[in-house]
């Protein structure tokens, strides 16, 4: 049973079943503040499903997900966001018809209700924050460009920026460097390391060099269960992991 915890995110005994198939099986995962955890594993291991359950997209069959000691299971998605959870999806999910500025503005953590929206004012504070985040994600010069015209990599950064606007305490990034060039990957690695302070970050990735650069701790998932956990070195040399995923 779940107990009080010092961890920022405590997942205990998490299971989800689809028609008898266990996508995630009795998972235990604990993440501390300021930690950058990378989850790796072969396709179908259940990585994205875990993120889906944390942000409320999928309902687990059993188990508990505690964030800041608050149970997230059963909470509506938008409420989970208000708790401080931010998620970046596998395929860049930005508003194509709005400019970069507007994409960020819409993610500002005020004016979430209907009346709040109507009464929302673009104050100096809002503008300043947008500029700051835009600089952070290297899109300062692109503020007036519509989302649809950004490159794939820029869209990923924009989505991260939208997350940052919300001032989340848990950031979940699903394959943040997929489709990026080498230089873009380096910029992204630096970005992720910068934003780690004061938060915990979960990253799902397949690029092992990228993982090695950013990870504090690595968790390997396989068939919905944890296969290995530890530093990148430990995991890389783990024979089970090599067998199942990393190859010889």
């Amino acid at each position, binding site marked *: 049973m779940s107990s009080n915890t010092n961890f920022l995110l405590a997942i205990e005994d998490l299971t989800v079943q689809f028609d008898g198939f266990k996508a995630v099986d009795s998972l235990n995962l604990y993440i501390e503040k300021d930690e950058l955890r990378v989850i790796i594993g072969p396709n179908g291991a259940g990585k994205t499903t875990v993120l889906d359950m944390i942000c409320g997209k999928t309902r687990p069959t059993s188990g508990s997900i505690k964030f800041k000691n608050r149970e997230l299971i059963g909470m509506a998605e*938008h409420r989970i966001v208000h708790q401080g959870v931010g998620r970046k999806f596998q395929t860049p999910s930005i*508003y*194509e018809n*709005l400019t970069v500025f507007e994409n960020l503005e*819409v993610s500002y953590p005020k004016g979430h209700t209907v009346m709040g929206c109507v009464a*929302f004012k673009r104050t100096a504070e809002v503008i300043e924050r947008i500029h700051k985040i835009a600089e952070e994600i290297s899109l300062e010069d692109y503020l007036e460009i519509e989302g649809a015209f950004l490159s794939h990599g820029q869209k990923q950064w924009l989505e991260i920026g939208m997350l940052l606007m919300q001032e989340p305490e848990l950031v979940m990034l699903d394959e943040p460097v997929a489709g990026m060039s080498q230089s873009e990957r380096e910029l992204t690695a630096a970005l992720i390391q910068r934003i780690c302070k004061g938060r915990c970050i979960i990253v799902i990735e397949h690029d092992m060099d990228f993982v090695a650069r950013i990870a504090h701790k690595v968790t390997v998932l396989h068939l919905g269960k944890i296969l290995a956990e530890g530093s990148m070195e430990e995991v890389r040399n783990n024979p089970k992991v090599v067998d199942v995923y990393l190859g010889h």
Partner: protein
Amino acid sequence: MKNIYTRVFRGTNGLTNLALLALVLLVVLPVSMPIFRLNLVGKYLTYAFVALGLVMLWGKAGVLSLGQGVFFGLGGYCMAMFLKLEASDPVSTKIQSTPGIPDFMDWNQITHLPAFWVPFKSLPFSLLAVVVVPTIVAFIVGLAMFKRRVGGVYFAVITQALALILSLAIDSRQGYTGGRNGITDLKTMWGWDIRTHHAQYILYFVTCIFLLLAILLSQWLLSGKTGKMLLAMRDREDRVRFSGYDVSMFKVATFCFAAALSGLGGALFVLQVGFISPSLVGIVPSIEMVIFCAVGGRTSLYGAIYGTLLVNTGKSLFSETFPQLWLFAMGGLFIAVVVLFPDGLAGVFELVRKKLKPWLEKFRNKPSLPVGIPGTVNGDQP
């Protein structure tokens, strides 16, 4: 001041569109036609309220409702009930078995006013009800449906069912609602005779003013964060939800807004035309109102007004001269607007404007500025 200029009037573009529409409605039409035709235009303009609501609901929020007739009818019936009670004072109805109640109740051997009619003796209550009753119904239906993520086609079919239910319910209870014939023989509103030419002129202008105000209100709502949210929700509902917004409440709010506008239109209809019946509540009028909006260009506020006027004028011209052909034309219009002209009148307008831009530039000697479609957010296309 500048904020109002951009947000309510939408800058130079918006002001031009507003001025043009105001000119047409308030000057050109009243001057160029006799009162009985102007009264007809006034009737069409009441439909335009529904079309406006649909621009917000369907064009901007992406939710298609095939039952806006319900709200038009609710608003209309609220107004009609007040007017009917006024016209059924004991003196005028003294030949009835029970004087003081509407004639159709008397014909159905009803001997006292049903409870739900009584509050409509008061003008303030009735005026309030015109907008509040449709809003409440929309709130209940919207909450039930949107909270459960019912959208798209399912929602459209259910609204259609609601339109059927209401029209059948009104139809079946002649004693309480006037039945198929509706509520007729309306005479005065608080002593003022609404049937005179003078009154019809006034009511026409009142309708126009309300319509223009509704457009300004919609523009104001759309220009801020709300407009962007609706656009974001229409394109990527999931992302909006995971950015912390309760998407269903936004849909409910827009649905209520569209309902309130339709109710207002219904009341103005009753005042100008002098009756209401279930034929304005059911499936057919509801889906026709959708076509007015679609012809205008679905996402264009001004387009909705012009679209309504165009289709209705076409309808009366056609049915006078070629009654057989009218349904073919209407059917063809539905198909054409969906397949060939999804941007409707607004799209045509935009095309013309693009062609004219180089000429206008030469004339004005100004550099090119980005230009938006009237009534849309940042000139976006649907």
